[in-house]
């Protein structure tokens, strides 16, 4: 059982206390209440407090409601919150999105470098000058991001399977760092010989912390996948609220403040997107029997 981070615990306690003293008639926080709960996975923004804070303020003001970001240390925990209907909106990875397809609606897809797509990067330390692909990494120590990450777990395993090996025994040792950023750290420090990382995270980090990414070398780039989507909880979010939020997101690129936030997030804008963007990910999941056959 994982302990809640201290800050979240405090917020939870305050919310609970608030519930007790609220007059009868005001609706509880879940559903179409005063507080909108926005889940964020460690995939992207987990370490970027300031950007998150600015975005939260932006959205709260536009909506006239309080946006509460709910951060968890692993994808699984965020998925668990969706399953328990404890989140209204979330920005999640492709893999959890497809796993929870029946509980969520696709709200918007960010565009990155002009396209609603990203890749999986295979990275090694700069000391390693010989590795060219997964074929050279048999018997090595490998860092995965998260068991529910597409680019940090599903895509690399698929690539190994595709070359005819069993990802379960291909490496001498594997471990999860629970975030893409830490995969880069693990490879940069030499703890892992190689790791699989989200191209968007790597490229964004290369802008703000080039000394860290500079210790790693990209040896392989996967084909494009649909960019991790923003979703709405199908049960918690009504049609009106869905539209309001979607409109807000799609309009961010149109105003100055919104553009600034998008810039900080290293994104171009948000688009409506569609399910077909994620078909290639579903295909990879089918290889491991994690998604129903067509």
């Amino acid at each position, binding site marked *: 059982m994982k302990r809640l981070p201290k800050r979240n615990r405090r917020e939870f306690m305050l919310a609970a206390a608030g519930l007790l003293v609220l007059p009868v008639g005001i609706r509880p926080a879940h559903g179409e209440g005063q507080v909108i709960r926005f889940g964020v996975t460690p995939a992207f923004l987990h370490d970027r407090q300031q950007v998150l804070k600015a975005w939260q303020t932006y959205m709260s003001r536009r909506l006239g409601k309080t946006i509460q970001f709910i951060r968890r240390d692993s994808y699984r925990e965020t998925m668990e919150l969706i399953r328990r209907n404890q989140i209204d909106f979330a920005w999640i990875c492709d893999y959890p999105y497809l796993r929870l397809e029946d509980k969520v609606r696709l709200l918007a897809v960010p565009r990155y470098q002009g396209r609603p797509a990203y890749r999986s990067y295979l990275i090694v330390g700069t000391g390693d000058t010989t590795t060219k692909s997964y074929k050279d990494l048999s018997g090595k*120590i490998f860092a995965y991001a998260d068991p529910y990450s597409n680019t940090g777990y599903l895509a690399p395993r698929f690539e190994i399977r595709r070359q005819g090996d069993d990802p379960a025994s291909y490496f001498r040792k594997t471990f999860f760092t629970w975030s893409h950023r830490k995969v880069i750290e693990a490879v940069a420090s*030499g703890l892992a010989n190689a790791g699989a990382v989200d191209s968007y995270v790597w490229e964004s980090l290369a802008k703000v912390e080039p000394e860290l990414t500079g210790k790693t070398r990209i040896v392989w780039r996967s084909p494009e996948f649909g960019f991790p989507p923003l979703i709405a909880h199908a049960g918690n979010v009504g049609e009106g609220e869905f539209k309001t939020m979607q409109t807000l997101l799609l309009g961010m690129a149109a105003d100055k403040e919104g553009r600034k936030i998008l810039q900080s997030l290293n994104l171009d804008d948000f688009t409506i997107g569609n399910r077909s963007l994620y078909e290639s990910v579903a295909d990879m999941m089918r290889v491991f029997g994690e998604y129903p056959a067509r």
Partner: protein
Amino acid sequence: MIRWLFDHSLRQKIPLWGAVLIICPTVFLSGLMMYHTYGDSKNSIVAGATALGRVLSKTLAPSLIHDDLWRAFEMVRAPMTTSGQPDGATPDTITVISPRREVVVSSDPQRLPTLSPISRLDRELWPISKPDFKISETRPAVIEEAGSQFIYMTFPIADRGLYLGALVIRYPRSHLYAKFWEVAIDSALLGLAVLVILLPVNWYWGQRMAVPLVKLASLMKGISGRPPEKFATESYGYKDELGQMFAAYNNMVDVLEEKAALERQVLSSNRLAAIGRLTAGIAHEINNPLSGMLTSIDTQEKLGTLDERSARAFGLIKRGLQQIRDTMGALLVEARPKKRWLEPRDLEDVRTLLQHEVATGRIDLQIVTDIPDRVPIPAGAVRQIMMNLLHNAVRAAGMAEAGEVRAFIAGIGADLVIRVTNNGETLNEDRLGDLFEPFVTNHEGGNGLGLWVTYQLVSQLGGTIDVNSDETQVEFIVRLPVAEDEKTS
């Protein structure tokens, strides 16, 4: 060789040995300080590592059980990035070693890669990497190998009695050495400061002691026959043992000088006695035929048978013989006791006899007498002693600007003491040596017999005569014993 070291002068030895005595404890104390610093630094490292190791070994256990390499890595890396350790004693690397002696995780995976057997990591983990090295599975241990540049601390990681591996915290000794040198330089400077203060004090004190001793030694080296110089006591004005020694040395010089003076005196009186015996013998031998010759010349003159030429020749012979007799008479001094005892008027006579001489020389003469009416000492002898001494004194004082002669005669105890001083020319050592010998004279016209006669008279009366001469005056002191039985009669 070693003796040669000790044969040097105190002038060098006292400051040198003093310096050695100052330098040795200073160096020793500085060394002790450095030694303690090394120990203290090591203890503080061990204490810091122990606190760190106990916490880490407990918190690492769950990660090892769940094989959560990343969490374990974050834990071992955390102490490296936060410099919360005192004295800059931050560990160099932290490593977890599995029971199979492989690296589980380390804070520096580049040098200590995960899963590498420690036997291949001699550079990083010597001596723990030795195949026969036993890592304690029950308690923390400090490993400090002589050849290694690191200090290691190992902590067992266990969960409910199950040994999961060992936590190894490594510290470079260079931290210790850096601290050590810091203190070494500090204590060297302190030591130098102590030396800068103490060495000049020591040198001054050594000179203060050694210089008078060296001087004394060179004075004493000069003792052979002649009494040595006295020690200048102002060069060491203290009453400690050295001061007492210098005083004793001066006393010894005094005694030696007295002894030398006594020897000189004895020598001189022996010589004078020998001369006295010789002259008396010769005088007697000459006097006997002389009397016969003078008698026969008298007889011839009385007969009146001599022609003029013969009478002239006889006269010439007679005067020559008489001169010989007078000289012999002067040489043959005799006190002729018991003729008449000394009375105050004898002294009045002496004054009267000298009057003419005193007047012509413009001499200030004062005679103080303090004697009873009759002193049982032959008056003639005393008169002649007085006359001789005063005659000499008046003549010597005549040479001075304002001549002064003082005479004093009195009965003191059992002696009659005659003291005559004048302020004329002083007498040097050589003159004092042969002053009383016959035919030794210092002025024209003197026959050199005055003091000889005086000496003979004093000797025959059983007395002593002393002469002292200093810058201001010449003094003669005569002591004549007064016979007991004669005094009462």
